[in-house]
């Protein structure tokens, strides 16, 4: 058994920032990550990070845009704190060594992003996540901590509503071990791979969120799933909102700049839920293009000129060329929405505290909530750093006074037994078969537009897959780098989380932000301005609700 004061699970931006804060507070910190920290999905974030640093901008304006973007489901006290921290957070990352793009006067360059009243998004070309991830990792390299590199989390050990540590295994050797800790910070990122058509990396399987749910933590607002408007057709690879921020436009098959019908004031720079629904509607009503990978519309960058496209959207040029065979300097990019971001996650307050003692969460794995029903572009990178730091501070403070964790030797056996059963079975389905079926169900039944009958049909299919999961078989018997075992673990995690998404979506009888019910097309503030809380029950998630914190901004109709 290993022991640390604070164990951070996940080593993207949120996990690393939490670790740094806990180390600076003087705690013995371990970072557990199933992939090397520099390979985290934070590095795939393209467009930028919001901070109201411009002379014409303000914390209040950023707060208002975020509240409005959330369709009034974000907690306004948390959003005010978040936007106030934005400037210092970006400056700190600059001081850590992050290489940002610069304006001619040497200040941090800013670009326009959707749902924002001002060019507020600070960027590093179109690889802002990579720049921040390098900057933070290289800063963290000067601190003392233990890195468990390529370790998979299997279990969060909780007794008496308190966390005592985790069980994990080293992919490189196959050895399982207990890591006792006074505080555990979950920063394992999203679970976008519950969908097939997603911009998310293969690693985005929500392991920490599922482990927290299994251990009895509350998950919040799981039904709110963001679909990014512009993803490549076959692969679902992201084309940054920065492409529209730099002036890119959307056209349907008739050559119409159709966003004028959906967001007459800001056109392509409306909020992501609005643009995704617009594209979906254009295609559904026959005004899109069609091809072997389904319907689509065009994202045009040609008019921006070769120099601008190649310098500010360098990665996008490469992605389009390699993954779609398109040169965006001279050709339109065929795009269609894809799952992109999970607004929901482990329910926390703005200090990162979850509902179990000693459990903390930050980043996309958590739900504070600042994004409410729809996240604005440029706010997720900011969230990882602002709330990663808060969770690290809170986890360190808790560890300072908490009694020693009471981990038992039998905790290891309890955690490992089901995994052994998969490997010992002589017959059974491969986990990847069930994963693919789950993804097909989510793509088909839990998409941009929803209604009760479709959602219930999806839930029925998902539960059938879940029941088969108990009989899967892991064929690979090797202890070293057994990806087959990881597949099984991840698939089990995602099946639980997918269920909470659907159950939450069925229950919410309104349309708000990214949750669009054709049978309840209006937002219903009287009934539904509240957060969904899901807790694991004997027959799936049990739901309860909590009020939205609001301070200064009364709900208004959301028009862009």
């Amino acid at each position, binding site marked *: 058994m290993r022991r640390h004061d604070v164990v951070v699970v996940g080593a993207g931006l949120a996990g690393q920032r939490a670790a740094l804060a806990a180390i600076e507070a003087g705690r013995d910190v371990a970072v557990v990550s199933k992939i090397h920290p520099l390979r985290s999905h934070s590095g795939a974030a393209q467009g930028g990070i919001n901070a109201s640093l411009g002379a014409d901008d303000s914390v209040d304006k950023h707060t208002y845009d975020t509240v409005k973007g959330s369709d009034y489901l974000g907690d306004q006290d948390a959003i005010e704190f978040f936007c106030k921290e934005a400037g210092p957070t970006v400056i700190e990352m600059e001081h850590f060594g992050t290489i940002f793009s610069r304006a001619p006067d040497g200040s941090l360059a800013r670009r326009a992003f959707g749902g924002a009243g001002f060019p507020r998004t600070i960027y590093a070309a179109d690889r802002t996540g*990579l720049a921040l991830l390098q900057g933070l990792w290289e800063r963290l390299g000067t601190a003392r901590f233990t890195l468990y590199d390529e370790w998979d989390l299997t279990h969060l050990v909780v007794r008496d509503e308190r966390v005592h540590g985790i069980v994990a295994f080293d992919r490189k050797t196959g050895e399982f071990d207990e890591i006792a800790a006074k505080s555990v910070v979950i920063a394992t990122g999203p679970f976008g791979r519950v969908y097939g058509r997603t911009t998310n990396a293969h690693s985005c399987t929500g392991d920490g969120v599922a482990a927290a749910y299994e251990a009895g933590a509350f998950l919040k607002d799981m039904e709110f799933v963001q679909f990014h408007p512009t993803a490549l057709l076959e692969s679902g690879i992201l084309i940054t909102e920065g492409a529209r921020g730099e002036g890119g436009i959307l056209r349907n098959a008739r050559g119409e700049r159709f966003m004028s019908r959906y967001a007459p004031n800001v056109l392509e720079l409306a909020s992501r839920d609005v643009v995704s629904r617009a594209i979906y509607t254009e295609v559904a009503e026959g005004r899109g293009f069609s091809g072997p990978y389904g319907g689509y519309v065009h994202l045009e960058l040609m008019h921006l000129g070769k120099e601008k496209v190649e310098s500010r959207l360098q990665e996008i040029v490469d992605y389009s060329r390699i993954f779609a065979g398109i040169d965006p300097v001279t050709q339109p990019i065929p795009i269609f929405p894809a799952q992109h971001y999970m607004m929901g996650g482990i329910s926390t307050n703005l200090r990162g505290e979850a509902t179990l003692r000693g459990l903390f969460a930050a980043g996309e794995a958590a739900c504070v909530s600042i994004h409410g029903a729809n996240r604005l572009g440029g706010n997720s990178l900011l969230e990882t750093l602002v709330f990663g730091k808060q969770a690290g501070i809170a986890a360190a403070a808790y560890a300072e006074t908490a009694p020693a964790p009471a981990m038992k030797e039998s905790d290891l056996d309890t955690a490992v037994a089901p995994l052994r059963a998969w490997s010992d079975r002589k017959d059974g389905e491969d986990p990847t078969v069930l994963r693919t079926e789950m993804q097909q169900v989510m793509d088909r039944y839990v998409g941009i537009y929803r209604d009760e009958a479709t959602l219930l049909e999806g839930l029925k299919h998902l539960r059938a897959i879940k029941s088969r999961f108990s009989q899967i078989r892991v064929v690979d018997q090797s202890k070293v780098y057994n990806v087959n075992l990881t597949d099984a673990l991840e698939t089990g995690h995602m099946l639980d989380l997918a269920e909470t998404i659907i159950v939450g979506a069925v229950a919410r009888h309104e349309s708000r932000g990214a949750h669009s019910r054709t049978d309840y097309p209006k937002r219903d503030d009287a009934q539904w301005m509240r957060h969904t809380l899901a807790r694991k029950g004997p027959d799936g998630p049990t739901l309860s609700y909590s009020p939205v914190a609001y301070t200064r901004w009364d709900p208004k109709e959301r028009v862009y």
Partner: protein
Amino acid sequence: MAGTTVSATFEVYRFDPKKDASPRYQRHTLELAPHTTVLTALLRIRGEIDPSLALRYSCRSSICGSCAMQVNSKSRLACETQIGPELERHGRIVLEPMRNQAVLRDLVVDQAPFWHHYAKIEPHLILDPRRPMPAGKENPMSPEEVERFKETPRCIACAACFSACPAVEADPGFPGPMALAKLYRYVVDPRDAAHQDRLLAIQPGGLWTCLRCHLCTEACPKDIRPSERIRDLKEMAIRVQGATELGSRHAVGFKANLRDRGLLNEMKLVRQTSGLFGMLGQLGQGIRVARKKPEILSRPRRIEGLDEVERIYAALDTDGGDAK
């Protein structure tokens, strides 16, 4: 995009050092569209044929750096390598783990040496205590200063360059292209106060081990051009320290020779590189060479058209050495 498929044969390296006496190649033939990536093909092999195949992968869009491997003997990212061109050139697709790193299993290698060299160049800002960060605001940095980083901020640490580098193979103490490109990134950073120390620290046994073969630049999926940045570091190191290392003295002597006569004076070059004592150590080899090539003992005459050589040098001196 979609449409016709091709019959693609893969030969995949399989080896579990804990169980197998030696590696074997597993052959699979699949019907796939020519633009299918190697990673997509591997995931199909895992999903449909053999779930026990071990590999690293994550983003599938050439940004996480997980899936570097040898595709037909070239170090590449599996996720951005399409099978069509590989089949046209080689008729089949041989997939092997990266080189210069021990195989853990199948296509997965132990990256500890790679991470070790990266950490060893101290990849973080080192500040001058007399010049702290500006409180509450960013350090100004002009777009021209950002340009000086060249493409190095795009590095995704995939280690394809480390795998391709013959100097790493010959000398495991050599930091490798990625670490040196990272060093360059910190040396040119206007916020960093340790430029000179960094250059001094990397000279002995580091910088000059590079063979200038440019295989790293060929392997890099992000066009970082590590070999060009290593060249820049060598120039900066000579400027800071003068030519004190074997490698740097050789480079400086080579340049002076050519400028002077238009030809190499090999006797002089050996003396310039190794010094008089060093020259004695190479006496045996010198005699062997002189028997076959007695002209090396005489001072070369100036070549015709030396003014042309001078013009090239003048041009190189003024544009900062970027012309080749």
